[in-house]
Protein backbone atom coordinates (compact mmCIF):
# COMPACT_ATOMS: atom_id res chain seq x y z
CA UNK A 1 0.00 0.00 0.00
CA UNK A 2 2.88 2.34 0.68
CA UNK A 3 4.23 1.76 -2.78
CA UNK A 4 0.85 2.28 -4.35
CA UNK A 5 0.51 5.53 -2.44
CA UNK A 6 3.83 6.84 -3.73
CA UNK A 7 2.76 5.98 -7.26
CA UNK A 8 5.51 3.66 -8.43
CA UNK A 9 5.63 2.65 -12.07
CA UNK A 10 4.27 -0.83 -11.34
CA UNK A 11 0.86 0.33 -10.22
CA UNK A 12 -1.64 -2.30 -11.35
CA UNK A 13 0.02 -5.40 -9.86
CA UNK A 14 0.60 -3.53 -6.60
CA UNK A 15 -3.05 -2.67 -6.33
CA UNK A 16 -3.86 -6.30 -6.82
CA UNK A 17 -1.39 -7.14 -4.09
CA UNK A 18 -2.96 -4.51 -1.87
CA UNK A 19 -6.30 -6.18 -2.36
CA UNK A 20 -4.86 -9.48 -1.29
CA UNK A 21 -3.27 -7.81 1.72
CA UNK A 22 -6.53 -6.19 2.77
CA UNK A 23 -7.90 -9.68 3.24
CA UNK A 24 -5.16 -10.45 5.72
CA UNK A 25 -5.67 -7.34 7.84
CA UNK A 26 -6.24 -9.52 10.87
CA UNK A 27 -2.79 -11.05 10.37
CA UNK A 28 -1.31 -7.54 10.11
CA UNK A 29 -2.88 -6.57 13.43
CA UNK A 30 -1.58 -9.77 14.99
CA UNK A 31 1.98 -9.09 13.81
CA UNK A 32 1.99 -5.51 15.09
CA UNK A 33 0.32 -6.34 18.38
CA UNK A 34 3.37 -7.41 20.45
CA UNK A 35 5.37 -4.32 19.46
CA UNK A 36 2.37 -2.07 20.07
CA UNK A 37 1.88 -3.66 23.49
CA UNK A 38 5.54 -3.05 24.28
CA UNK A 39 5.28 0.62 23.34
CA UNK A 40 2.15 0.99 25.45
CA UNK A 41 3.66 -0.77 28.48
CA UNK A 42 7.18 0.64 28.39
CA UNK A 43 6.65 4.09 26.86
CA UNK A 44 3.08 5.37 26.97
CA UNK A 45 2.17 4.03 30.42
CA UNK A 46 5.43 5.24 32.03
CA UNK A 47 5.05 8.71 30.52
CA UNK A 48 1.41 8.90 31.66
CA UNK A 49 2.46 7.73 35.13
CA UNK A 50 5.09 10.44 35.23
CA UNK A 51 2.55 13.12 34.35
CA UNK A 52 0.16 11.80 37.03
CA UNK A 53 2.89 11.69 39.69
CA UNK A 54 4.10 15.18 38.78
CA UNK A 55 0.64 16.52 39.64
CA UNK A 56 0.68 14.85 43.08
CA UNK A 57 2.55 15.65 46.25
CA UNK A 58 5.42 14.00 48.04
CA UNK A 59 4.42 11.51 50.74
CA UNK A 60 5.93 11.55 54.21
CA UNK A 61 8.08 8.51 53.49
CA UNK A 62 8.83 9.54 49.93
CA UNK A 63 6.78 8.20 47.09
CA UNK A 64 3.76 10.32 46.32
CA UNK A 65 0.21 11.14 47.32
CA UNK A 66 -2.14 11.36 44.35
CA UNK A 67 -3.46 14.86 44.17
CA UNK A 68 -4.23 17.53 41.67
CA UNK A 69 -1.90 20.25 42.80
CA UNK A 70 0.95 21.55 40.76
CA UNK A 71 3.20 22.23 43.71
CA UNK A 72 6.03 20.20 42.15
CA UNK A 73 6.05 22.52 39.12
CA UNK A 74 6.00 25.53 41.41
CA UNK A 75 8.91 24.02 43.35
CA UNK A 76 10.80 23.55 40.09
CA UNK A 77 10.58 27.32 39.57
CA UNK A 78 11.73 27.94 43.15
CA UNK A 79 14.90 30.05 43.41
CA UNK A 80 16.47 27.00 45.07
CA UNK A 81 16.28 25.01 41.83
CA UNK A 82 16.47 27.87 39.34
CA UNK A 83 20.25 27.39 38.91
CA UNK A 84 19.61 23.79 37.78
CA UNK A 85 17.28 24.95 35.00
CA UNK A 86 19.63 27.75 34.03
CA UNK A 87 22.78 25.62 33.87
CA UNK A 88 20.91 22.89 31.99
CA UNK A 89 19.67 25.39 29.43
CA UNK A 90 23.15 26.90 29.05
CA UNK A 91 24.64 23.41 28.80
CA UNK A 92 22.21 22.28 26.11
CA UNK A 93 22.53 25.49 24.06
CA UNK A 94 26.28 25.77 24.59
CA UNK A 95 26.85 22.10 23.79
CA UNK A 96 24.74 22.36 20.63
CA UNK A 97 26.50 25.53 19.45
CA UNK A 98 29.90 24.00 20.24
CA UNK A 99 29.06 20.86 18.27
CA UNK A 100 27.83 22.98 15.37
CA UNK A 101 31.01 25.10 15.30
CA UNK A 102 33.17 21.99 15.34
CA UNK A 103 30.98 19.98 12.95
CA UNK A 104 30.21 22.37 10.09
CA UNK A 105 33.80 23.00 8.94
CA UNK A 106 34.56 19.29 9.33
CA UNK A 107 31.50 18.25 7.30
CA UNK A 108 32.30 20.96 4.74
CA UNK A 109 35.88 19.76 4.46
CA UNK A 110 34.75 16.16 3.98
CA UNK A 111 31.98 16.94 1.50
CA UNK A 112 33.83 19.45 -0.67
CA UNK A 113 37.51 18.52 -0.30
CA UNK A 114 37.27 14.85 0.54
CA UNK A 115 37.56 13.55 -2.99
CA UNK A 116 37.84 9.82 -3.09
CA UNK A 117 38.70 9.74 0.60
CA UNK A 118 35.42 11.33 1.73
CA UNK A 119 33.84 7.97 2.63
CA UNK A 120 36.90 7.04 4.64
CA UNK A 121 36.81 10.43 6.34
CA UNK A 122 33.18 10.00 7.25
CA UNK A 123 33.74 6.46 8.53
CA UNK A 124 36.57 7.77 10.72
CA UNK A 125 34.12 10.24 12.27
CA UNK A 126 31.57 7.47 12.78
CA UNK A 127 33.86 4.84 14.34
CA UNK A 128 34.29 6.52 17.75
CA UNK A 129 30.54 7.14 17.77
CA UNK A 130 29.92 3.41 17.31
CA UNK A 131 32.07 2.44 20.25
CA UNK A 132 30.96 2.53 23.87
CA UNK A 133 29.59 5.88 25.05
CA UNK A 134 30.66 5.10 28.60
CA UNK A 135 34.24 4.29 27.66
CA UNK A 136 34.54 7.36 25.46
CA UNK A 137 33.46 9.51 28.39
CA UNK A 138 35.81 7.68 30.74
CA UNK A 139 38.72 8.30 28.38
CA UNK A 140 38.60 11.97 29.35
CA UNK A 141 38.94 11.14 33.05
CA UNK A 142 42.40 9.80 32.26
CA UNK A 143 43.29 13.00 30.49
CA UNK A 144 41.67 15.63 32.72
CA UNK A 145 42.14 14.26 36.24
CA UNK A 146 44.38 16.38 38.56
CA UNK A 147 47.42 14.18 37.95
CA UNK A 148 46.30 13.18 34.49
CA UNK A 149 47.97 13.41 31.13
CA UNK A 150 46.97 17.02 30.44
CA UNK A 151 48.57 18.26 33.64
CA UNK A 152 51.56 16.00 33.03
CA UNK A 153 52.01 17.69 29.66
CA UNK A 154 51.49 21.18 31.09
CA UNK A 155 54.00 20.47 33.86
CA UNK A 156 56.55 19.24 31.36
CA UNK A 157 56.52 22.60 29.57
CA UNK A 158 56.50 24.52 32.86
CA UNK A 159 52.83 25.59 32.92
CA UNK A 160 50.64 25.48 36.05
CA UNK A 161 48.23 22.54 36.32
CA UNK A 162 44.54 22.91 35.49
CA UNK A 163 41.77 21.47 37.63
CA UNK A 164 39.20 20.67 34.98
CA UNK A 165 37.71 17.33 36.06
CA UNK A 166 34.42 17.56 37.98
CA UNK A 167 33.69 20.96 36.49
CA UNK A 168 31.75 22.43 33.59
CA UNK A 169 34.74 22.49 31.21
CA UNK A 170 35.14 18.73 31.50
CA UNK A 171 31.40 18.29 30.88
CA UNK A 172 31.55 20.45 27.74
CA UNK A 173 34.54 18.50 26.43
CA UNK A 174 32.69 15.25 27.06
CA UNK A 175 29.62 16.56 25.26
CA UNK A 176 31.59 17.78 22.28
CA UNK A 177 33.38 14.46 22.13
CA UNK A 178 30.26 12.29 22.27
CA UNK A 179 27.79 14.39 20.28
CA UNK A 180 30.02 15.72 17.48
CA UNK A 181 29.21 12.89 15.02
CA UNK A 182 25.47 13.47 15.49
CA UNK A 183 25.98 16.99 14.14
CA UNK A 184 28.45 16.00 11.41
CA UNK A 185 26.25 13.36 9.69
CA UNK A 186 23.21 15.48 8.83
CA UNK A 187 25.31 18.47 7.76
CA UNK A 188 27.46 16.21 5.61
CA UNK A 189 24.36 14.68 4.02
CA UNK A 190 22.98 18.14 3.26
CA UNK A 191 26.29 19.26 1.74
CA UNK A 192 26.56 16.14 -0.35
CA UNK A 193 23.06 16.55 -1.72
CA UNK A 194 23.83 20.12 -2.67
CA UNK A 195 23.81 20.43 -6.45
CA UNK A 196 27.29 21.62 -7.54
CA UNK A 197 25.66 23.37 -10.50
CA UNK A 198 24.11 25.90 -8.11
CA UNK A 199 27.50 26.80 -6.68
CA UNK A 200 28.89 26.98 -10.22
CA UNK A 201 26.10 29.26 -11.32
CA UNK A 202 26.69 31.57 -8.39
CA UNK A 203 30.37 31.81 -9.27
CA UNK A 204 29.69 32.33 -12.95
CA UNK A 205 27.45 35.22 -12.03
CA UNK A 206 30.43 36.81 -10.33
CA UNK A 207 29.67 36.10 -6.68
CA UNK A 208 32.65 35.86 -4.37
CA UNK A 209 33.30 32.66 -2.48
CA UNK A 210 31.91 34.13 0.69
CA UNK A 211 28.79 35.44 -1.06
CA UNK A 212 28.32 32.04 -2.70
CA UNK A 213 28.59 30.31 0.65
CA UNK A 214 26.27 32.73 2.39
CA UNK A 215 23.63 32.86 -0.33
CA UNK A 216 23.74 29.35 -1.80
CA UNK A 217 25.53 26.75 0.32
CA UNK A 218 24.44 27.92 3.77
CA UNK A 219 20.67 28.25 3.10
CA UNK A 220 20.60 24.90 1.33
CA UNK A 221 22.37 23.11 4.18
CA UNK A 222 20.19 24.66 6.88
CA UNK A 223 17.85 21.63 7.03
CA UNK A 224 20.90 19.48 7.81
CA UNK A 225 21.94 21.90 10.54
CA UNK A 226 18.39 21.80 11.93
CA UNK A 227 18.49 18.00 12.07
CA UNK A 228 21.84 18.15 13.83
CA UNK A 229 20.49 20.62 16.36
CA UNK A 230 17.51 18.35 17.00
CA UNK A 231 19.70 15.26 17.45
CA UNK A 232 22.11 17.02 19.80
CA UNK A 233 19.93 19.48 21.72
CA UNK A 234 17.10 17.18 22.81
CA UNK A 235 19.22 14.38 24.33
CA UNK A 236 21.51 17.02 25.88
CA UNK A 237 18.65 18.48 27.94
CA UNK A 238 18.55 15.18 29.84
CA UNK A 239 22.20 14.10 29.65
CA UNK A 240 23.08 12.00 32.68
CA UNK A 241 26.21 9.93 32.00
CA UNK A 242 28.57 12.78 31.10
CA UNK A 243 27.76 15.02 34.12
CA UNK A 244 27.93 11.95 36.37
CA UNK A 245 31.42 11.00 35.23
CA UNK A 246 33.05 14.28 34.21
CA UNK A 247 30.98 16.72 36.27
CA UNK A 248 31.34 15.02 39.63
CA UNK A 249 27.76 13.74 39.70
CA UNK A 250 26.37 16.77 41.47
CA UNK A 251 22.84 17.98 40.81
CA UNK A 252 23.90 20.76 38.51
CA UNK A 253 22.02 19.56 35.47
CA UNK A 254 18.43 18.53 35.02
CA UNK A 255 19.26 14.92 34.10
CA UNK A 256 21.28 14.28 37.25
CA UNK A 257 18.92 16.42 39.35
CA UNK A 258 15.92 14.41 38.19
CA UNK A 259 17.61 11.09 38.91
CA UNK A 260 18.63 12.27 42.39
CA UNK A 261 15.09 13.38 43.17
CA UNK A 262 13.60 10.04 42.21
CA UNK A 263 16.23 7.75 43.73
CA UNK A 264 18.07 9.47 46.61
CA UNK A 265 15.72 12.23 47.78
CA UNK A 266 12.63 10.15 47.03
CA UNK A 267 10.78 13.24 45.90
CA UNK A 268 8.93 11.64 43.01
CA UNK A 269 6.65 14.56 42.13
CA UNK A 270 9.60 16.93 41.77
CA UNK A 271 11.58 14.43 39.67
CA UNK A 272 8.49 13.74 37.56
CA UNK A 273 7.80 17.43 37.04
CA UNK A 274 11.36 17.82 35.77
CA UNK A 275 10.81 14.86 33.42
CA UNK A 276 7.55 16.35 32.13
CA UNK A 277 9.37 19.64 31.56
CA UNK A 278 11.98 17.82 29.46
CA UNK A 279 9.26 16.08 27.44
CA UNK A 280 7.57 19.44 26.86
CA UNK A 281 10.84 20.94 25.66
CA UNK A 282 11.33 17.96 23.35
CA UNK A 283 7.82 18.28 21.91
CA UNK A 284 8.35 21.98 21.23
CA UNK A 285 11.71 21.40 19.55
CA UNK A 286 10.30 18.55 17.43
CA UNK A 287 7.23 20.61 16.48
CA UNK A 288 9.41 23.51 15.37
CA UNK A 289 11.64 21.11 13.47
CA UNK A 290 8.73 19.42 11.68
CA UNK A 291 7.39 22.83 10.71
CA UNK A 292 10.72 23.98 9.32
CA UNK A 293 12.10 20.80 7.77
CA UNK A 294 9.36 18.18 7.56
CA UNK A 295 9.23 14.48 8.23
CA UNK A 296 11.56 13.23 5.51
CA UNK A 297 14.51 15.09 6.98
CA UNK A 298 14.65 13.01 10.11
CA UNK A 299 14.00 9.74 8.30
CA UNK A 300 16.87 10.46 5.95
CA UNK A 301 19.41 11.43 8.59
CA UNK A 302 18.50 8.71 11.05
CA UNK A 303 19.02 6.11 8.35
CA UNK A 304 22.67 7.14 8.20
CA UNK A 305 23.21 6.13 11.80
Amino acid sequence: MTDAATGGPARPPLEAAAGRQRGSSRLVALLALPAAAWYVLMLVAPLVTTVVISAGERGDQGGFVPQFTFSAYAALLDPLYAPVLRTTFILAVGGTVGCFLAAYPLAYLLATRGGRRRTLGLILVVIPFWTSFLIRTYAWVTILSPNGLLNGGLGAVGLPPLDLLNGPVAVYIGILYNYLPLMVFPIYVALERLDPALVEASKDLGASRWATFRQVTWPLTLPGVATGVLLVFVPLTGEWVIPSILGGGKSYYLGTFMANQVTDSRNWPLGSAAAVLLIAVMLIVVAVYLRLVGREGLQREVSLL
Partner: protein
Amino acid sequence: MTASPSSNALPSRAVGPSDRATPGRTAGRGAVRRRVDLVEAYLRAHGAIAYLFLYVPIAIVVLYSFNDSRYVLVWGGFSLRWYQAAWTDPQVLNPLKTSLIVAALNMVCATTLGTLAALAIVRAPRLVRLAFDALIYTALIVPEVVVALASLLFLNSAFGFLGDVGVRLTFGIPTIVAGHVLWNLSLVILVVRARMAGMDRSLIEASQDLFASPWRTFTQVTLPQLAPAILAGALLSFTFSMDDVVLSTFLSGVGSTTLPMRVFSMIRFGVTPAVNAISAVMLLLTLVVIVVSQWLVRRAGRPSPAAEATSG
Protein backbone atom coordinates in the same frame (compact mmCIF):
# COMPACT_ATOMS: atom_id res chain seq x y z
CA MET B 1 53.25 36.43 -11.97
CA THR B 2 50.80 34.12 -13.59
CA ALA B 3 48.15 32.11 -11.89
CA SER B 4 49.74 28.72 -12.34
CA PRO B 5 51.65 28.41 -9.02
CA SER B 6 48.67 29.30 -6.89
CA SER B 7 46.24 27.15 -8.80
CA ASN B 8 48.59 24.28 -8.06
CA ALA B 9 48.65 25.11 -4.38
CA LEU B 10 46.40 22.18 -3.61
CA PRO B 11 47.11 19.74 -6.40
CA SER B 12 45.52 16.71 -4.78
CA ARG B 13 42.25 18.46 -4.17
CA ALA B 14 39.28 16.83 -5.81
CA VAL B 15 36.80 18.96 -7.69
CA GLY B 16 34.18 19.88 -5.18
CA PRO B 17 31.03 21.91 -5.56
CA SER B 18 32.56 25.19 -4.48
CA ASP B 19 35.95 25.22 -6.09
CA ARG B 20 36.37 24.94 -9.77
CA ALA B 21 38.14 28.22 -10.24
CA THR B 22 39.85 28.28 -13.59
CA PRO B 23 43.38 29.66 -13.73
CA GLY B 24 42.24 32.48 -15.99
CA ARG B 25 39.71 33.71 -13.50
CA THR B 26 41.97 33.76 -10.44
CA ALA B 27 44.77 35.53 -12.30
CA GLY B 28 45.50 38.98 -10.93
CA ARG B 29 43.47 38.50 -7.77
CA GLY B 30 46.37 38.01 -5.41
CA ALA B 31 44.65 39.29 -2.28
CA VAL B 32 41.55 37.21 -2.85
CA ARG B 33 43.66 34.17 -3.52
CA ARG B 34 45.60 34.65 -0.33
CA ARG B 35 42.40 34.86 1.67
CA VAL B 36 41.09 31.75 -0.08
CA ASP B 37 44.29 29.92 0.82
CA LEU B 38 43.77 30.98 4.43
CA VAL B 39 40.32 29.43 4.33
CA GLU B 40 41.82 26.25 2.90
CA ALA B 41 44.49 26.19 5.59
CA TYR B 42 41.89 26.72 8.28
CA LEU B 43 39.67 23.91 6.97
CA ARG B 44 42.59 21.51 6.86
CA ALA B 45 43.78 22.43 10.35
CA HIS B 46 40.23 22.13 11.66
CA GLY B 47 39.92 18.66 10.16
CA ALA B 48 43.28 17.53 11.55
CA ILE B 49 42.45 18.75 15.04
CA ALA B 50 38.99 17.16 14.88
CA TYR B 51 40.45 13.75 14.04
CA LEU B 52 43.10 14.04 16.74
CA PHE B 53 40.37 15.05 19.20
CA LEU B 54 38.33 12.00 18.22
CA TYR B 55 41.12 9.43 18.37
CA VAL B 56 43.68 10.46 20.97
CA PRO B 57 41.47 9.73 24.03
CA ILE B 58 40.55 6.26 22.75
CA ALA B 59 44.19 5.55 21.91
CA ILE B 60 45.19 6.58 25.44
CA VAL B 61 42.72 4.18 27.05
CA VAL B 62 43.93 1.29 24.92
CA LEU B 63 47.59 2.17 25.44
CA TYR B 64 47.25 2.43 29.21
CA SER B 65 45.41 -0.86 29.40
CA PHE B 66 48.81 -2.46 28.74
CA ASN B 67 50.41 -0.46 31.55
CA ASP B 68 52.22 -2.50 34.21
CA SER B 69 51.96 0.22 36.86
CA ARG B 70 49.50 0.10 39.74
CA TYR B 71 48.73 3.75 39.11
CA VAL B 72 46.45 4.52 36.24
CA LEU B 73 48.53 7.36 34.88
CA VAL B 74 52.12 6.27 35.51
CA TRP B 75 53.67 4.26 32.73
CA GLY B 76 55.42 1.21 34.18
CA GLY B 77 56.17 -0.85 31.10
CA PHE B 78 54.14 -3.19 28.94
CA SER B 79 52.09 -5.88 30.62
CA LEU B 80 48.86 -7.82 30.31
CA ARG B 81 48.37 -8.03 34.09
CA TRP B 82 45.24 -5.85 34.16
CA TYR B 83 43.60 -8.01 31.54
CA GLN B 84 44.34 -10.97 33.74
CA ALA B 85 43.16 -9.10 36.85
CA ALA B 86 39.87 -8.19 35.19
CA TRP B 87 39.38 -11.66 33.76
CA THR B 88 39.75 -13.34 37.18
CA ASP B 89 37.70 -10.79 39.17
CA PRO B 90 34.22 -12.10 40.06
CA GLN B 91 33.17 -8.45 40.46
CA VAL B 92 33.75 -8.18 36.72
CA LEU B 93 32.81 -11.67 35.56
CA ASN B 94 29.37 -11.78 37.21
CA PRO B 95 28.31 -8.46 35.68
CA LEU B 96 29.69 -9.69 32.37
CA LYS B 97 27.47 -12.75 32.63
CA THR B 98 24.45 -10.57 33.48
CA SER B 99 25.24 -8.30 30.54
CA LEU B 100 25.49 -11.22 28.12
CA ILE B 101 22.11 -12.58 29.32
CA VAL B 102 20.47 -9.15 29.02
CA ALA B 103 22.03 -8.58 25.61
CA ALA B 104 20.93 -11.98 24.28
CA LEU B 105 17.34 -11.58 25.54
CA ASN B 106 17.14 -8.02 24.27
CA MET B 107 18.48 -9.08 20.89
CA VAL B 108 15.97 -11.90 20.47
CA CYS B 109 12.94 -9.90 21.68
CA ALA B 110 13.73 -6.65 19.89
CA THR B 111 14.62 -8.35 16.61
CA THR B 112 11.56 -10.62 16.57
CA LEU B 113 9.02 -8.00 17.62
CA GLY B 114 10.64 -5.30 15.50
CA THR B 115 10.72 -7.41 12.34
CA LEU B 116 7.11 -8.52 12.78
CA ALA B 117 6.04 -4.92 13.40
CA ALA B 118 7.96 -3.65 10.38
CA LEU B 119 6.22 -6.26 8.20
CA ALA B 120 2.86 -5.23 9.59
CA ILE B 121 3.33 -1.45 9.53
CA VAL B 122 3.86 -1.17 5.76
CA ARG B 123 0.52 -2.92 5.22
CA ALA B 124 -1.32 -1.05 7.96
CA PRO B 125 -3.74 1.84 7.39
CA ARG B 126 -2.21 5.31 7.26
CA LEU B 127 -3.40 6.31 10.71
CA VAL B 128 -1.85 3.24 12.35
CA ARG B 129 1.40 3.92 10.49
CA LEU B 130 1.50 7.48 11.76
CA ALA B 131 0.82 6.33 15.31
CA PHE B 132 3.66 3.82 15.06
CA ASP B 133 5.97 6.47 13.62
CA ALA B 134 5.21 8.74 16.56
CA LEU B 135 6.01 5.95 19.03
CA ILE B 136 9.16 4.84 17.18
CA TYR B 137 10.68 8.31 17.07
CA THR B 138 9.53 9.28 20.55
CA ALA B 139 11.27 6.23 22.02
CA LEU B 140 14.47 7.18 20.19
CA ILE B 141 14.53 10.90 20.83
CA VAL B 142 13.26 11.35 24.40
CA PRO B 143 16.34 11.71 26.65
CA GLU B 144 17.16 8.20 27.85
CA VAL B 145 17.10 9.22 31.50
CA VAL B 146 13.48 10.37 31.13
CA VAL B 147 12.42 7.00 29.73
CA ALA B 148 14.43 5.22 32.43
CA LEU B 149 12.95 7.18 35.33
CA ALA B 150 9.43 7.07 33.89
CA SER B 151 9.70 3.29 33.52
CA LEU B 152 11.09 3.02 37.04
CA LEU B 153 8.16 4.99 38.46
CA PHE B 154 5.59 3.10 36.40
CA LEU B 155 6.96 -0.38 37.11
CA ASN B 156 7.37 0.47 40.78
CA SER B 157 3.70 1.51 40.99
CA ALA B 158 2.58 -1.46 38.89
CA PHE B 159 4.60 -3.94 40.98
CA GLY B 160 3.17 -2.41 44.15
CA PHE B 161 -0.34 -2.81 42.79
CA LEU B 162 0.30 -6.37 41.64
CA GLY B 163 1.84 -7.17 45.04
CA ASP B 164 -1.43 -6.18 46.69
CA VAL B 165 -3.28 -8.76 44.61
CA GLY B 166 -0.68 -11.43 45.33
CA VAL B 167 1.61 -11.29 42.28
CA ARG B 168 5.14 -10.60 43.43
CA LEU B 169 7.40 -9.00 40.84
CA THR B 170 10.72 -7.25 41.41
CA PHE B 171 13.30 -5.33 39.45
CA GLY B 172 16.02 -7.39 37.84
CA ILE B 173 17.15 -8.75 34.50
CA PRO B 174 13.59 -8.83 33.03
CA THR B 175 13.00 -5.14 33.76
CA ILE B 176 16.37 -4.16 32.28
CA VAL B 177 15.54 -6.19 29.17
CA ALA B 178 12.09 -4.57 28.96
CA GLY B 179 13.71 -1.14 28.89
CA HIS B 180 16.38 -2.10 26.37
CA VAL B 181 13.84 -3.72 24.05
CA LEU B 182 11.84 -0.48 23.86
CA TRP B 183 14.76 1.44 22.40
CA ASN B 184 15.96 -1.36 20.12
CA LEU B 185 12.47 -2.15 18.88
CA SER B 186 12.44 1.28 17.25
CA LEU B 187 15.90 0.71 15.84
CA VAL B 188 15.04 -2.69 14.33
CA ILE B 189 11.78 -1.38 12.83
CA LEU B 190 13.63 1.50 11.16
CA VAL B 191 16.43 -0.70 9.80
CA VAL B 192 14.09 -3.43 8.51
CA ARG B 193 11.64 -0.92 7.06
CA ALA B 194 14.46 0.85 5.21
CA ARG B 195 15.38 -2.50 3.68
CA MET B 196 11.77 -3.20 2.73
CA ALA B 197 11.58 0.13 0.92
CA GLY B 198 14.48 -0.94 -1.27
CA MET B 199 13.16 -4.45 -1.75
CA ASP B 200 12.21 -5.95 -5.06
CA ARG B 201 8.41 -6.31 -5.08
CA SER B 202 8.36 -8.11 -8.41
CA LEU B 203 9.88 -11.21 -6.85
CA ILE B 204 7.07 -11.38 -4.30
CA GLU B 205 4.49 -10.91 -7.03
CA ALA B 206 6.16 -13.57 -9.14
CA SER B 207 6.03 -15.93 -6.20
CA GLN B 208 2.33 -15.18 -5.70
CA ASP B 209 1.61 -15.55 -9.39
CA LEU B 210 3.26 -18.95 -9.26
CA PHE B 211 0.71 -19.92 -6.60
CA ALA B 212 3.07 -20.01 -3.64
CA SER B 213 1.25 -19.82 -0.33
CA PRO B 214 1.75 -16.54 1.59
CA TRP B 215 3.85 -18.44 4.14
CA ARG B 216 6.08 -19.90 1.43
CA THR B 217 6.44 -16.52 -0.23
CA PHE B 218 7.46 -15.09 3.09
CA THR B 219 10.03 -17.74 4.01
CA GLN B 220 11.50 -18.22 0.55
CA VAL B 221 11.33 -14.72 -0.93
CA THR B 222 10.70 -11.99 1.63
CA LEU B 223 12.77 -13.29 4.52
CA PRO B 224 15.99 -13.96 2.58
CA GLN B 225 15.84 -10.42 1.21
CA LEU B 226 15.31 -8.96 4.67
CA ALA B 227 17.92 -11.15 6.36
CA PRO B 228 20.87 -8.72 6.27
CA ALA B 229 18.78 -5.91 7.80
CA ILE B 230 17.38 -8.23 10.48
CA LEU B 231 20.86 -9.47 11.33
CA ALA B 232 22.18 -5.91 11.49
CA GLY B 233 19.31 -4.94 13.80
CA ALA B 234 20.11 -7.92 16.01
CA LEU B 235 23.80 -7.01 16.26
CA LEU B 236 23.01 -3.36 17.01
CA SER B 237 20.59 -4.45 19.75
CA PHE B 238 23.21 -6.73 21.27
CA THR B 239 25.78 -3.93 21.38
CA PHE B 240 23.27 -1.51 22.87
CA SER B 241 22.83 -3.81 25.87
CA MET B 242 26.56 -4.33 26.25
CA ASP B 243 27.03 -0.55 26.36
CA ASP B 244 23.98 0.89 28.10
CA VAL B 245 24.28 2.45 31.55
CA VAL B 246 21.24 4.68 31.95
CA LEU B 247 18.32 2.28 31.46
CA SER B 248 20.20 -0.54 33.19
CA THR B 249 21.02 1.56 36.25
CA PHE B 250 17.44 2.62 36.92
CA LEU B 251 15.74 -0.65 36.00
CA SER B 252 18.10 -3.07 37.73
CA GLY B 253 17.45 -4.86 41.00
CA VAL B 254 19.54 -6.62 43.59
CA GLY B 255 22.14 -8.83 41.92
CA SER B 256 21.48 -7.68 38.36
CA THR B 257 24.46 -5.40 37.87
CA THR B 258 25.53 -5.27 34.24
CA LEU B 259 29.11 -4.81 33.09
CA PRO B 260 28.68 -1.15 32.04
CA MET B 261 27.07 -0.45 35.44
CA ARG B 262 30.05 -2.05 37.12
CA VAL B 263 32.50 -0.03 35.02
CA PHE B 264 30.48 3.10 35.76
CA SER B 265 30.80 2.61 39.50
CA MET B 266 34.48 1.70 39.14
CA ILE B 267 35.02 5.01 37.37
CA ARG B 268 33.09 7.02 39.95
CA PHE B 269 34.56 5.40 43.03
CA GLY B 270 38.24 5.04 42.36
CA VAL B 271 39.71 4.04 39.05
CA THR B 272 41.95 0.99 38.86
CA PRO B 273 43.93 0.18 35.71
CA ALA B 274 41.64 -2.84 35.29
CA VAL B 275 39.03 -0.36 34.00
CA ASN B 276 41.32 0.40 31.09
CA ALA B 277 41.61 -3.29 30.25
CA ILE B 278 37.84 -3.81 30.40
CA SER B 279 37.38 -0.64 28.36
CA ALA B 280 39.79 -1.78 25.68
CA VAL B 281 37.96 -5.10 25.36
CA MET B 282 34.56 -3.36 25.28
CA LEU B 283 35.82 -0.94 22.63
CA LEU B 284 37.08 -3.78 20.50
CA LEU B 285 33.91 -5.84 20.91
CA THR B 286 31.49 -3.02 20.10
CA LEU B 287 33.67 -1.98 17.20
CA VAL B 288 33.75 -5.44 15.63
CA VAL B 289 30.01 -5.96 16.05
CA ILE B 290 29.13 -2.53 14.70
CA VAL B 291 31.46 -2.74 11.72
CA VAL B 292 29.91 -6.07 10.77
CA SER B 293 26.36 -4.76 11.20
CA GLN B 294 27.07 -1.56 9.27
CA TRP B 295 28.56 -3.62 6.49
CA LEU B 296 25.36 -5.66 6.44
CA VAL B 297 23.19 -2.53 6.43
CA ARG B 298 25.18 -0.98 3.60
CA ARG B 299 24.96 -4.18 1.64
CA ALA B 300 21.26 -4.46 2.42
CA GLY B 301 20.70 -0.83 1.45
CA ARG B 302 21.90 -1.49 -2.06
CA PRO B 303 19.27 -2.88 -4.41
CA SER B 304 19.72 -6.56 -5.03
CA PRO B 305 21.23 -7.61 -8.38
CA ALA B 306 17.83 -8.94 -9.40
CA ALA B 307 16.18 -5.59 -8.69
CA GLU B 308 18.80 -3.80 -10.73
CA ALA B 309 18.33 -6.22 -13.59
CA THR B 310 14.55 -5.81 -13.69
CA SER B 311 14.51 -2.06 -13.25
CA GLY B 312 17.24 -1.52 -15.85
